[in-house]
């Protein structure tokens, strides 16, 4: 498995070079603490992975950072903007792909693309050019006139990704982007993500597939709302003297 090289620090480092900063962020639903006082930074151009079992608080964290959910407490910045005050500005700078590949099943592939490009204020001409550009890696134009519901899951996944990056967001949030997709499509998808990151896009990705953790530059392991480990995959492996992230994860969660 080839791992992409870490981001070149000379690329596009405005301000402090951080795409996302989070300090003491928490979210409670009644008595239940979904996210418990987490803090971390994501550098620009980094693939930052959130690893954890279902219910560990990964999705809740993403929803807070994308402005879908108000944090109970704590601070955070996305693209240099405050998540409490400037969420409208944040929205123009992020792309988001939810774990359900939220697309309109009764719309054709192109219609989905025009719709999602349209709500970001892109002109139809602009979208057409952008789709042609993305098609080199995403291969969607071949099925442009098919209804989305008739597509295999791997195509839907790529279409959802295309919809999320039409407006060229500097920061991309992916919530379990490979759920249910076959291994080949998953591999292909991660190659796309690595290319995007290589071009300077910051990628914030959650997953519960342990093998996918290897694609990330840096990894944070979440358990019951807390971050219990955070470092590069190789450093984590060295620390726990193990070759498999999966073993380490089970060891961490079991203790």
């Amino acid at each position, binding site marked *: 498995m080839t791992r992409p090289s870490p981001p070149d620090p000379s690329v596009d480092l405005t301000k402090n070079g951080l795409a996302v900063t989070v300090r003491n962020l928490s979210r409670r639903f009644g008595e239940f603490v979904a996210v418990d006082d987490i803090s971390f930074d994501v550098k620009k151009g980094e693939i930052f992975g959130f690893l954890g079992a279902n219910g560990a608080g990964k999705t809740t964290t993403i929803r807070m950072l*994308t*402005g*879908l959910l*108000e944090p109970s407490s704590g601070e955070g910045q996305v693209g240099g903007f405050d998540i409490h005050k400037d969420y*409208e500005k944040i*929205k*123009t700078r*992020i792309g*988001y792909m*939810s774990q*359900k590949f*939220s*697309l*309109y*099943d*009764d*719309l054709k592939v192109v*219609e989905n693309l*025009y*719709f*999602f*490009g*349209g*709500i*970001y*204020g892109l*002109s139809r001409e602009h979208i057409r050019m952008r789709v042609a550009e993305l098609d080199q890696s995403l291969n969607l134009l071949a099925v442009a006139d098919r209804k989305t519901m008739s597509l295999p899951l791997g195509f839907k996944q790529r279409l959802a990704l295309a*919809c999320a990056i039409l407006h060229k967001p500097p920061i991309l949030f992916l919530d379990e982007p490979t759920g249910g997709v076959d291994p080949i499509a998953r591999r292909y998808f991660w190659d796309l993500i690595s290319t995007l990151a290589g071009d300077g896009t910051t990628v914030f990705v959650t997953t519960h597939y342990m093998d996918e953790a290897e694609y990330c530059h840096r990894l944070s392991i979440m358990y019951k709302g807390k971050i219990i480990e955070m470092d590069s995959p190789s450093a984590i492996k060295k620390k726990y003297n193990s070759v498999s992230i999966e073993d380490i994860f089970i060891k961490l969660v079991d203790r």
Partner: protein
Amino acid sequence: MINTRILPLIRKEFIHIRRDPRSLVILLLMPLIMMFIFGYAINMDLKHIRIGICDLNRTPSSRELIETIRMSPYFEIVTYYNNPNRTEALFTKRLVRAVIIIPADFGKSHARSRFANIGVITDGTDANSATLVQNYLDGLFMGKSISSATNGSGPLVSVKSRMLYNPDMTSSHFVVPGIVAILLIMIGALLTSVTIAREKETGTMEQILVSPIRPYEVVLGKAIPYLVLSFTIAVFILVFGHLWFKVPMLGKWGFLLLFCVFYVFTALAIGLLISTVVATQQVAMMLSLVITMLPSVMLSGFVFPVASMPRPLQVVSQIIPATHFLKIIRGVMLKGNGPLELWPSVAAMSAVGLFFILLAVRRFKLKLK
């Protein structure tokens, strides 16, 4: 107001509508079916009521009376009998809905005092019809006494009533505008709440909400297509009621349609409001039907007059948009009223409509953040 971000929303919504012809057919058929059911079934005029006659008098006077009843289009005499004890059997065997018993001294007292009693017994299991039968018979005998007054010294005062604006008491003239009011609020609320619930279910709403689109743009992007659709249905029902049920249109189409637009907008606001509290399409559908249909049928004055409701229900009826819209649509269609005569209802409906619209937009916004 319409900017480049709303257009894709509107376009997408029309694609949904076009791609789902089954729902479209249901949307057009439902009003038709309802109109036929209500238009014909809620028929307040009874005809050919089956009655039995027990003539214990057998004089020319009683025969004259029976002849009067026989000539009336409202009654059909199915049996003559002589033993009053058989009366109950006629009812239990469901042969008649009313019986008229002419007492043995009818002829005598009629000749003597011009006042004579006859017995009318109706089947109270269907209270509405029973009342109607009694009213018809009263009317019939009033005519009878008038006719006998001409060849004698009868009552000096006789009541001649005339029904204005619906002289034939045709139920459909009264019912069809009511159906328009109920269907529009129901369809409007249903469409909006279900389409938003669907986006919540599939997660596409979330996808829209992470984009820079503003809440009001989402609302308008949803409202405009369904406003167009609901309004088309409104015109369809109105024209159908006008042509098929011959509901007169004495007022101005323009004024009525303008208010239809506003009324439909109110319906969409209610749908939007419902969508903020539900998570699935099923619940959205049930809630929309219950919230719009029940009050609009029971409390708006569609069937039961508001004036005869208990005080608290009268207050409730004032916040039901259909109450005010009913006054407007009946006024315009049957009486030829315009804004000049209808302004209290117009003002009340505008207030109720604005209340729902503002509440919906506010709640929707809150929900997003």
